[in-house]
């Protein structure tokens, strides 16, 4: 099966439900064969956006282009977008075989051809031998494989996955994530997945679009999203970040708790700022001029890591993680420490 990836472009997509704006002027360019995750809290408009791409919902404004052609006027199947629903939406009264062949039957494919494609699809998702089962006789993971096979059987140019792993338990989830990634690479099919699970988005996607209130806050590679969040929302929604409020003076942060030397160069900004720091970028330091006085509140040993909940002089709490290897001094609750930033640690500065 050689589905060659096609580019997908969203141009200023806006969607309103009554007076509420669900999707607010979203523009994304997805490269051929890329996996893009739409990540955001519930109600951020990510599922609405996916349904617009699928053709199940007509946007209030903007255009969807698949492979360079605008598909706004086309029904779902003619725009080459295949969607896998969160609950899989397998037809409960049809066998696996009939489910997978549904799209082929709908487009009037000859019987022999259809049987061949169905068998190939079931092989692709490793479900051969289950052709005559009913969906209710399958486990969640198996149902998802069948749903994938059913969608892929009609050779979509773009694969859309709505919260694909939300209904699976944790162990199965990893298996299916690997499986989906394998299929996606094998078929080189442009894929958009919707998720509220940041780990899922960061681990599976080539690029992540973080959405909030119907807008894309940042569209970048996972490491960039994590290291250089474009907004305070991204900094706090993706991963953990401690927020420090103050003013930038000579490349350091002046705040109520003291003066914190920033680990890397930042663009000077006038006025109040918020600095977001990842817990692993904090260090316990001895230098009296580089850190902030703090008291250890809680210690959570977590396998190879230790998470410290630390209270600064002004009452702000920050999270500090250190490795728990040999030769690393450990602290106990109540200890007074000084907290500084690792040299070269990326810091994100936002105007208050």
């Amino acid at each position, binding site marked *: 099966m050689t589905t060659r990836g096609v580019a997908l472009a969203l141009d200023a997509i806006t969607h309103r439900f009554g007076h509420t704006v669900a999707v607010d002027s979203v523009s994304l360019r997805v490269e051929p064969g890329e996996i893009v995750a739409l990540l955001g809290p519930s109600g951020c408009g990510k599922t609405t956006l996916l349904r617009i791409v699928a*053709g199940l919902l007509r946007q209030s404004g903007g255009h969807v282009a698949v492979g360079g052609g605008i598909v706004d006027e086309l029904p779902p*199947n*003619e725009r080459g977008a295949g969607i896998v*629903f969160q609950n899989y939406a397998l037809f409960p*009264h049809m066998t696996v075989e009939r489910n997978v062949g549904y799209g082929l039957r709908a487009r009037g494919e000859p019987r022999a051809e259809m049987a061949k494609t169905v068998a190939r699809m079931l092989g692709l998702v490793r479900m051969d031998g289950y052709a005559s089962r009913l969906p*209710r006789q399958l486990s969640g993971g198996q149902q998802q494989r069948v749903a994938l096979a*059913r*969608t892929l059987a009609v050779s979509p140019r773009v694969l859309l996955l709505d919260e694909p792993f939300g209904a699976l338990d944790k162990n199965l989830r990893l298996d299916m994530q690997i499986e989906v990634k394998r299929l996606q690479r094998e078929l080189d099919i442009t894929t958009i997945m919707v998720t509220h699970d940041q780990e899922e988005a960061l681990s599976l996607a080539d690029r992540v679009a973080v959405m909030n209130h119907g807008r894309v806050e940042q569209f970048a590679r996972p490491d960039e999203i994590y290291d250089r969040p474009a907004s305070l929302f991204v900094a706090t929604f993706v991963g953990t970040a401690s927020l420090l409020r103050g003013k930038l003076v000579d490349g350091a942060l002046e705040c109520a708790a003291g003066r914190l030397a920033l680990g890397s160069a930042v663009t000077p900004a006038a006025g109040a700022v918020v600095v977001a720091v990842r817990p692993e970028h904090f260090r316990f330091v001895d230098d009296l001029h580089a850190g902030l006085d703090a008291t250890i509140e809680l210690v959570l040993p977590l396998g190879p890591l230790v998470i410290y909940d630390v209270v600064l002089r002004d009452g702000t709490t920050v999270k500090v993680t250190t490795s728990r290897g040999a030769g690393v001094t450990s602290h106990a609750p109540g200890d007074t420490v000084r907290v500084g930033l690792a040299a070269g640690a990326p810091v994100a500065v936002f105007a208050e």
Partner: protein
Amino acid sequence: MTSRTREWQLVLPLALFFALFVFAPLALLGAVSFYNDPTMTTPGVAQYVKFVTDRFNMAVLGQTLWLGLLATVVALVVGYPLAYIYMVAPAALQRVLMLVIVLPLLTSAVVRTFAWVVILGRQGIVNTALTALGLVDTPVRLLYTPWAVVVALAQIQLPLMVLPVITALGNIDPNLRHASHALGAGRWRTFVEVTLPLSAPGLLAGCLLVYAGSVSAFVTQTLVGGGQLMLMPQYMYQQAIQANNYPFAAAVAMILLVAVLAIVVMVNLVTRRTQSLVHG
């Protein structure tokens, strides 16, 4: 006493009610039907033999079951689309539609039947309209025909068809429809392959209710049929009240009961199969 045995006591009032007002009369009816003569002196199966060996009696039974079937088909043909329209209608329209659907249940069957008499009579709405439009010279005979009975029964029983179908349609995951469209199926294929089979349990339940209601609807059958058409309920009435032949009337009742029960059991078997397909 365990809680299990105490819970069981909760069904006592209903059980008592059923025993007194359903099973006891039914047993009495059954007992009465097994007398050979109207004065109830010699027990025997003569009434049943008389019923099944007489072509007129069998014709009455056949006609009753056939009319019930026709009424069910009409209710289905009208009711299913109505339920479908209700499901796809916007919320504001749904409230209006629901009122229209249940309105017949809020008036008595007698009132609804008289409405049909007014509509279909010689001086009724239909005939007046046809005459005024010059389509007919003399009033057409509409009332007291089998079709009048079928249409009136279908209308009167319609809510019993529409409500279960609405429930069944509402239980279908809308994503199944979306999935079907996304896979390239049009509206018609989606309806035939997905919506219709998945609504089958409600559809069969509706048919059953309408059928059972139609074959035993004495008032509507008698008033709209006008005695031109002998049907089982009216036959019972005539034999019991006019001919004073209680054993024969009881036998007629038992035969209708068994015939309807047989159909209900058959449809239930089909329903169970379709339900297991839908709900797993």
